[in-house]
Each structure stands twice: as C-alpha cells, then as structure tokens.
C-alpha cells in the first residue's frame, strides 16, 4: 500500500472504482460543503475537492478536504500549479498527509485569465508532471524536491488528469506515458462524450502497457441541458462533444433533457465497466451533487465496497 487510502484499496482489490467531485464554496460557510457532501457519502469511493477551479477563488481545497474527513467521506485533494510555488506545495502536501488526506490530484490549473482575478500572476513554478514526480519523491524516497530529507514521509495516493481529446490526439497517450513515468498512481480523465475516440485512446494505452501501470478512471459529466451541451462543445477548450449528443438532447422536450443527459451518462458507464483498461469512473456532476445518489443507484454502483 502506498497511501492506505480507500480509493487505493478499492482499486487494488480489483473493484470498479467510482469517485465524485465537490466544488468548495466562495465563502466561509462550512455547512455548504457538508450539505453537498451529504449527497456523496457512501455513494462514491472518494470525492475530488477542486482547487480554485476555473481560477476563481474558493475555500481552500485542503480545508474542504478536512470537512469531508469530519463527515466520514474520503477526499481527493486537488492541487494546481497556478497558485503556489514548490515550497508552498511541499508544505501543503506534508500538512495534508498529517491531517489524514490520502489522495491527491496533481494539475496544471486553468489560466488566471478565466477566473475572477484575471490579472493575477500565475505561479507555474513547476508543472503538473513535475508535481507528480515531487509527491512521489517525497513519499517513496523521503526527499524534498531539493534532495533534503523529509522527516516523516507523506502517505499520498498520487493522481493526475488526462485529456484524451485535446490535440494533437496521437500525442495524448505519450503524454499519459510521461505522467506514468513521473510516478502517477491513478488518472482521472477529462469528461468523455466522444466514446469512439476514448476507445481508441484506451486501446493505445493498453497497447503501450500503460493500463497495467496506472489505474484509469474515465471522466463522466452528465449533461443537464441542451444549453450546457452546446456551451461545452463551443466554449470549453479541449472538450469534444460530438453532434450525436447535441442531436439526442434536441430530440427530447426541454423538461426531459436532464433525464436524457443522465441516460447518456448511464449508457457510457455501462460500456466503461466492460472496457479493458478502465479501472473506474470519475463522476463530475457539476453543481449537481444532489443527483449523484440517483445516478449511482441507476448505474449499479451501489453499494460501494467497504474496505478495511
């Protein structure tokens, strides 16, 4: 065991993992975190806590992680390279481990330009790939990035993101291979809508032996409406929403669109469960935490395995 996290145990035992996501509030109300978290409790193996997502200031990821631990839910601490240098990152990694956080997701972070402080200075002292290597070095070698000894190694299950759809498509699997080489334990992918392209990506990852070295959790975000699908297709960089998804949502009445979005997600999950090389699903129900219990139930993900 590298970290002893619930997520690591679930994956290592060969269960099909199911993880969720929660965005911290833009304020100091702990109850907002608890309220959202209640929908996820016992429905997922671990909950990603976003880190100033879309470059908008929110309650610190590590703090919201602690609130989840208090509620008996395992968090996955997201950390972006945009807001901290290597000193702050290593300090936060030690603090997170000391307080019982056992999973981390290492990300570059959206550019400040997208957020609420568009002229802020992006730090990017190290990149996401280098962050993976840094956490691994601290955990496995007991050394800081500087080479100095860590007195008390952090126990962290190391995650990272992968976008199978961004260009150049043929490079994506090689960038995944670089993350594996850097020492990542699990991957959560960008939201998948283009299943043929995802199949091809996993096929390549299988061929390169990557899926034997890293657990890949396929990212799923149910479409809440036709408007959301159109927005994601047109406006979100690196997102690949095929016309079929738009057509399907167009084909139902407005008040049935969210149900159709969930149906699409359930069909995807059913296929992903059977796909060689896919170790689980990461459900990003954006501001839709209250629908997770229903989706988990209908996807046949419940009950979640109890690990000791």
């Amino acid at each position, binding site marked *: 065991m590298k970290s002893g996290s619930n997520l690591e145990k679930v994956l290592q035992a060969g269960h099909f993992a199911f993880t969720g996501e929660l965005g911290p509030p833009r304020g100091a109300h702990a109850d907002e975190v608890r309220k959202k978290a209640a929908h996820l409790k016992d429905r997922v193996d671990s909950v990603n806590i976003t880190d100033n997502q879309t470059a908008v200031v929110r309650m610190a990821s590590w703090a919201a992680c602690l609130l989840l631990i208090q509620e008996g839910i395992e968090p996955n601490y997201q950390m972006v390279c945009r807001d901290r240098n290597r000193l702050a990152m290593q300090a936060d990694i030690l603090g997170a481990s000391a307080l019982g956080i056992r999973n981390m997701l290492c990300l570059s972070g959206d550019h400040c330009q997208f957020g609420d402080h568009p002229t802020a200075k992006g730090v990017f002292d190290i990149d996401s790939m280098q962050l993976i290597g840094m956490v691994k070095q601290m955990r496995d070698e007991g050394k800081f990035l500087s080479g100095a000894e860590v007195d008390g190694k952090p126990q962290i299950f190391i995650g990272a993101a992968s976008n199978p759809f961004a260009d150049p498509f043929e490079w994506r699997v090689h960038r995944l291979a670089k993350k594996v080489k850097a020492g990542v334990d699990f991957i959560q992918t960008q939201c998948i809508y283009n299943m043929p392209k995802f199949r091809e990506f996993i096929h390549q990852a299988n061929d390169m032996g990557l899926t034997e070295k890293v657990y890949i959790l396929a990212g799923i975000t149910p479409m809440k409406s036709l408007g959301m699908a159109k927005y994601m297709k047109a406006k979100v*960089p690196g997102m690949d929403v095929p016309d079929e998804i738009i057509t399907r949502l167009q084909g139902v009445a407005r008040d049935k669109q969210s149900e159709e979005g969930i149906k699409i997600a359930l069909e995807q999950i059913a296929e992903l469960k059977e796909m060689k090389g896919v170790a689980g699903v990461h459900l990003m129900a954006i501001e839709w935490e209250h629908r997770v219990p229903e989706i988990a139930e209908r996807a046949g993900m419940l009950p979640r395995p109890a690990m000791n």
Partner: protein
Amino acid sequence: MIVAKRKPFDEIMDLTKDYKKILLVGCGTCVAVCLAGGEKEVAVLAAELEMGRRLKDNPVELGSVTLERQCDREYLAQLDKTAGDYDALVSMACGVGIQFLAERFPNIPVFPAVDTCGLAVNQDVGWYEERCRSCGRCVLGLTGGICPVTMCAKGLYNGPCGGTNKGNCEISADQPCAWNAIYDRLKAQGRLDCILELSLAQEWKDTTPRTLLQPGYKKPEKAKA
C-alpha cells in the same frame, strides 16, 4: 530586440506635473526601431507636453536629445554637462536605459515615458511579438526552436496541457498553442524523442539580479566613471 510602448499621455503629464524644466531623452537603438522612444517619438512627446502643460496653465521648458544608446556609459556621458540644467529627466529608453540614466544623474528625478514590453521579433513595421523571456536556460534545442517558457501561457515544460484547443491556447483562439506547434515541428523533423523524456523542475536563473561576465573578462575594482 527590446520593445516598449509609449505610456499614456495623462500618466506622463501626472508624473512630471511638478517640474518646470524637463529634458526628454530618447534612445536611438531598440526603442527607436520599435517606434516607441527614438528621435521622432521624442519630438512628438515634446509637442504634446508643451501644449498639454500650456492648456493647464502650467507651462514647461523642454529640452530634447536622443542618445545612440542609454545602456552605455559612453553615450550617457554626453549629458554630463547639460543634465544639471534641468529639474527632471524623462527617458524614452527601455527599463534598462532608464535605470542607467537615473544612476548616472542620481540627484535629478528621472521618469519613464514608456513601458518596456519584452524581447520581441519585428513582424512588420509597428508589429512586434515577444519570443524570449531571457530565462537563462535555453531549451530551444529540445523544443524545435519554439520557446515554451515564453510562448506557452503557463510556461509549461511538459505540454501541451489539457487546455490546448485545436492548435490554439485556452486563453485565446488568436494565440497558437506553443506545445502543439512544438509537437508539429518536431514530428516533421522526426525528433519527437526530444519531448518524450520528462523535463524536470527548472533551476530558475532569473530570480535574482543577474550579472554576466564573459570568460576572460574581469570586473574592474571600481566601475569606470
């Protein structure tokens, strides 16, 4: 070359409003080429200031001079006899020249009339694009001659990130994704192996003021006057 942009007129007016006799000092090198602070731009600023101050009932006496370079002592020395006649200097050189001018005349207030904007190529008359952040650790040999530090909005060494968008950067459809371009160029050259290896955390060389001493040269005991 170093490129710069003239500051907004109101800002220059505000910076210098308390001074009655001002010498405008242009620079004949980089900022002249990029049309920000050469002889022509000095003349334009002089005319604007003269009129602006007159309209505010705060007339000013102006002198104008354009040195070959403000980053070289031998050219700054040309002002040794005249600078003292003025109660302020306004420099139209890059940040380097402005500081060297202020260092040369420490008793006279010096004000910038331009904002220095980077190391750029001359795409066309009046159109310049940044290409180098002078990081001190050039990786162009591994990245197909395209700088990820400058041209990637996040300065990533292991790109492209998930925000790459059909050949462009997530920040704008007008900004090419540097890593996409790096990939394309290296692929065409059959050199993708250059970026298959992990690029480790940088030892940044630009976080403290840098001094460059070429091999075979020594600093004099005391800088030459």
